[in-house]
């Protein structure tokens, strides 16, 4: 498999995760509505779902550019985050933190690192658009946490943070588990070397996510 084919498969995996994220943000919008959250947050969640659908289209355009005819992976038919048999407030907070504070914060950090090394036009266009959106999506997570913290205790989330972090990191690693550490360099296609991605994620967890959660008394531990 050549570099373009390998990159195409990673972008195909990203296409699927974007579809999953669209479904999760749509569910978040519904839970925020049920929880009586401000319209601003509900609208941002709905907009985020639409953004993610657009991201999936951008990923597909890259796949078509790199390996025309490569068929999409089947999306998760009903992705879920966290406990389902609880109040809309708790579901919304869990999803906000898992999606926004953790996953989208990591994604924004990775895209910032990816962007300078990209030279493929289709990838450059997608990275620019997705980065701008991911920053907004991450802020939505931090905004929902801020709002929830003004209405009650949010520290019950603390035991779940490590699981959220591991899930986000696993998704990043699963994009290409066979990518050799010192093998083919796919940076120009928007794919970081694994050790660089790991370093960016670790720094973001340590300096952004953990201190951000600590502002609200959520003490997160992560190995």
């Amino acid at each position: 498999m050549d570099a373009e084919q390998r990159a195409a498969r990673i972008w195909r995996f990203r296409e699927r995760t974007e579809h999953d994220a669209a479904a999760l943000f749509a569910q978040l919008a519904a839970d925020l509505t049920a929880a009586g959250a401000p319209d601003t947050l509900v609208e941002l969640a709905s907009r985020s779902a639409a953004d993610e659908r657009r991201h999936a289209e951008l990923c597909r355009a890259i796949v078509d550019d790199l390996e025309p005819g490569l068929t999409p992976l089947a999306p998760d038919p009903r992705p879920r985050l966290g406990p389902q048999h609880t109040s809309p407030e708790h579901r919304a907070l869990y999803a906000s933190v898992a999606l926004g504070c953790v996953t989208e914060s990591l994604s924004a950090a990775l895209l910032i690192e990816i962007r300078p090394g990209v030279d493929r036009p289709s990838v450059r266009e997608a990275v620019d658009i997705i980065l701008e959106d991911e920053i907004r999506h991450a802020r939505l997570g931090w905004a929902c946490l801020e709002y929830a913290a003004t209405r009650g205790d949010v520290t019950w989330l603390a035991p779940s943070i490590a699981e959220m972090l591991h899930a986000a990191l696993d998704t990043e690693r699963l994009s290409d588990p066979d990518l050799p550490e010192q093998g083919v360099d796919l940076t120009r296609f928007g794919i970081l070397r694994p050790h660089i991605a790991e370093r960016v994620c670790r720094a973001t967890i340590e300096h952004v996510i953990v201190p951000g959660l600590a502002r609200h008394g959520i003490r997160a531990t992560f190995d």
Partner: protein
Amino acid sequence: MNDPNKLFRVLVVGGAFLGAGCTNSERPAPPATDGATSAEDGGGARELCFCPGDDGVCCETNASGTSVPRAGIECCWSTSC
């Protein structure tokens, strides 16, 4: 490697303002910290821009017609505000 302190300000502090119901023109002091946060977390002289992408509040057009952040505004990393 990106600057984690900047990322903290843009994502965490920017999101906190949004969650507190603020707009670009009205924002409260951020929540109390426990010392684990960025030294620039308290607001200070730098204006944080929420950069929603379509309100034009954060940007202006320079002489060459390029959209750039307004003076005194720190925007996100996006290619456009």
